[in-house]
């Protein structure tokens, strides 16, 4: 690890003052990935900007429309321990409570997990299922994009030079909907997803008909895979439909062979996890209804 400069600004304006000066700059929204990568020589930088001192980036709140606005550097543990969040967004809690162990979760953030752009990241399939968007800011303004448009490839995201991710926005969930995120790991904790699935379903007011379904898969492609499940809308939430969702998921998966899993194994897991996550999502939707 080569020496680098470190700053911990208090405001976004201060952050902008450190950008666009030709320095190789990295942001730290927790440091649980970036510090390890620097130490192992997988990244290099001249300047590391710590975002943890910026109030706006480390807080979270539901706004008047019920959207949960999460600062990009807010620690995961604070989010998933929040009683309101646990009640309103259990699908988010599924993912946020899986990223690392308790010490890691006290530092790590959704923003960091997203910007790291690992295909196996736990936050992204869940956030996509929840219909979340991202607010990206720079000295010249803000823009908002859906989470699924943020990833360009392994380790590559849609941030332009001079931009940073400032907010994750999770809209109020549709009525009668439920979301579930599941990943497969060989151990029971402290591991990285071999494959994962986030599923949201919305049921009709008085029947088990699916009004809408969203499915996103992790670790089965260079970026999160969003499964086209328009064909499932209007069908009954029964085992045949769930099986069909699993089949669609396996079809979309384009995984790689590596030490963590094989192509065939990951396709199989995409199917199995989609089925199990969908069953869980339907159960949650029914509880709410």
């Amino acid at each position, binding site marked *: 690890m080569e*020496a680098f400069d470190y700053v911990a600004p208090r405001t976004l304006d201060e952050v902008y003052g450190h950008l666009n000066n030709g320095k190789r700059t990295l942001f730290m929204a927790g440091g649980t990935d970036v510090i390890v990568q620097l130490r192992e020589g997988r990244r290099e930088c001249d300047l590391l900007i710590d975002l943890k001192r910026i109030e706006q980036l480390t807080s979270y709140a539901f706004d008047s429309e019920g959207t949960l606005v999460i600062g990009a550097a807010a620690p995961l543990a604070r989010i998933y321990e929040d009683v309101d969040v646990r009640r309103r967004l259990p699908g988010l809690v599924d993912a946020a409570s899986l990223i690392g162990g308790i010490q890691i979760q006290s530092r790590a953030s959704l923003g960091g997990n997203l910007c790291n752009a690992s295909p196996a990241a736990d936050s992204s399939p869940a956030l996509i299922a929840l219909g979340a968007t991202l607010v990206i800011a720079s000295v010249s303004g803000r823009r908002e994009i859906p989470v699924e448009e943020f990833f360009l490839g392994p380790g590559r995201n849609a941030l332009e030079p001079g931009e940073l991710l400032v907010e994750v926005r999770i809209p109020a969930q549709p009525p009668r909907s439920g979301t579930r995120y599941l990943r497969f790991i060989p*151990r*029971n904790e402290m591991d990285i997803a071999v494959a994962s699935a986030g599923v949201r379903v919305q049921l009709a007011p008085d029947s088990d008909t699916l009004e809408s379904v969203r499915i996103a898969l992790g670790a089965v492609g260079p970026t999160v895979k969003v499964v086209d499940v328009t064909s499932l809308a209007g069908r009954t939430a029964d085992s045949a439909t769930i099986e069909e969702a699993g089949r669609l998921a396996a079809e979309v998966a384009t995984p790689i062979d590596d*030490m963590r899993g094989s192509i*065939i*194994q990951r396709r*199989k897991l995409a199917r199995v996890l989609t089925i199990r996550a969908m069953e869980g999502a339907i159960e949650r939707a029914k509880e709410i209804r």
Partner: protein
Amino acid sequence: MVMADKPQYRVIGTRPLRPDAIDKVTGRAQYGADTRQSGMLRGYVLRSPHAHANIRSIDTSKALAYPGVKAVITAADFCLPGQTVADLPDLTTNILAGSKVYYHGQAVAAVAAISDEVAREAARLIDVDYEVLQPVLDVREAMLPGAPVLHEAMRTRTPEGPGAEPSNIVAHAVVVFGDPEAALADCDVVVEGDFSTRMVHQGYIEPQAATAMWNPDGQVTIWTAHQGSFPARQATATILNHPSSKIKVVLTEIGGGFGGKIAVYLEPVAAMLSKKTGHPVKLQMDRVDVFEGTGPTPGTSIRAKLGATKDGNFKVYMADMAYENGAYAGTAANYATMVATACYDIEHVRLDGYDVVVNKPRTQDYRAPSSPAAAFAMEQLVDQMAEKLNMDPEKLRLQNSSREGTRGSMGMPFARIGHEEIVQAALDSDHYNSPLEGPNRGRGTASGYWFNVGLRSSVNVTVQPDGTVALSVGSTDLSGTRTSLAMQLAETIGVDFEDVKAAVVDTDSVGYNDVTAGSRVTFGTGMATYEAGKNLIAAMKERLATTWNVPADDIQFEAGKFSSPDGSKSGTFKEIAQLVVGRGPGLTVSGSVNAGFLQGGGFAHHIVDVEVDPDTGKVQILRYTAIQDVGTAIHPAYVEGQLQGGAVQGIGWALNEEYFYDDNGRMLNSSFLDYRMPTTLDVPMIDTILVEVPNPLHPYGVRGVGEPPIVPPLAAIANAVAHATGVRQYQLPMSPRRILQTTGKIEE
């Protein structure tokens, strides 16, 4: 469970608090990397990116010129006058490569500098010119004619003499009893299998670290977390060509070893860097270095057959056992021939053991080295035999069990051993008698053996003026042996445990001790401690003779009390010590023993329940019971901890651990993220049953307990998975992917 003939003890069998506990839980204990010396430099070791390559040249000039660098060394610095690096022995080239590298991660050069960062940066400037060679990674491929040869000079040692051609087969050991071929034809039932296990690491929590100071007068001090201060001193002396008496090794606390810290890696390098710079130099590994550059345990390929009569009497066992030694010659397969059949009385045996070099790290011991893989084959065949004969596997084991007098695999009859007792304890256990219900679940059992060693030990005991005693030990305390030795001394001299203070001391301060391994310290150093206790009582009697004016031989010592022949004078150990030492000259005695090579053998038997997820292939351990003949449990809580730790390491080995290489021989998973040891969430409480069959070779009946418990888990879990899925598991690890493959859920 306690045998009826166990003597009553005062201290042995109790569970006192460990004296090193507070330092360890508060972080105050000093481990290898905590060593700080004034003027200390930091070292860094450059490692090979290739698995197999000739080193054409090493240019260190740019690194030497880097600001802050004090020295750069290579293997050439270890050559005697007239020697070249090609002449250096394996011992030396494994710590800094000579003319060749044999594995990815092998040390090639080392830098000493004013800081760790400077040393690392400078190491990047060392220019090594490699000629990359084809590696060979699979043990069976390495045995084939035409495989890339690691060592041109290697000729296979066989019972008929050395082979004619260069070969990767280090040695072919053959053990034959009876007439196995003929007996096989007479068997009613024969089961067989082609088994393989993967290279795994001990996974000790503390990476290696060593600091050395070479004084101008040639006196060298080394601070290290090592399993044996005296063997480390000898190996370092040999590599440095420096008298061992001029080297003092100071042991720090050690964060696990399991056999993996018997070899030296950093000690001679730090010493040479200190010699060159005149400063103390500290070297420490990180986890990548530990995985890639230290010695794991071999992967294996074992083809085995078990034959029996229709009544379930084992008649013949035949096994062809190939063990990876890694980059240099080792003895794992030879060990395997010594342990493979130990649990059973089998008349006809043929064991062929092949030690084989491959382009992986030089392997080292790991708890009962060679035995878990040998048991993975044997105990699955026993399970299959029970299925074929429609017998309870425990009853089949009991029917064929070794006992006192049975010929062991080394040819000698066993002394009193407890294999029958532990299998019976399994049959009687709550676990075995509780039904296992529900789909995708299975129960498995397996036995295991380790021979355990004695070797040489020495301790000193000093009497304090207040009548307490200090016990100075030369054996590394891996597992609480300061306590188990202090308890034996307290028992011997009749004092309370709290009146004995035990410490591990350096190589100048106590007589010779062999390595802390082979489950030998509580046994062998325990015998030395017992000797020291007896010597101390004798020395006290000599002094008391003058004070009491009676012949020393007539003084009685019983139940912790000295008394004069007529009973008129008496006193406890503490009272008498205050009298004859407190007011007299100091008193230190020693106890030194050679406890022999073998100590009589330890047997373990495990029961495990698993559930297999049919869709993901994941195996969950539901319930686990470890049963063992522990001789006499000196400190039962420590003994239980050994059984639990061994079982958990075995669970990891069985389910997910493996060295994962690319085709070029580069290890890809050298981190605890991708090298998957079990966490607390992956294992249930490991229940233990201690069976005490006292070892007749030790005054208190001690048997080594650290190694047998890693032997049964691989086979026990494989048997459980076979019963849960209906599919026999021949290969480790039984990872989710492997389970999906073998159960036909995915085809690849």
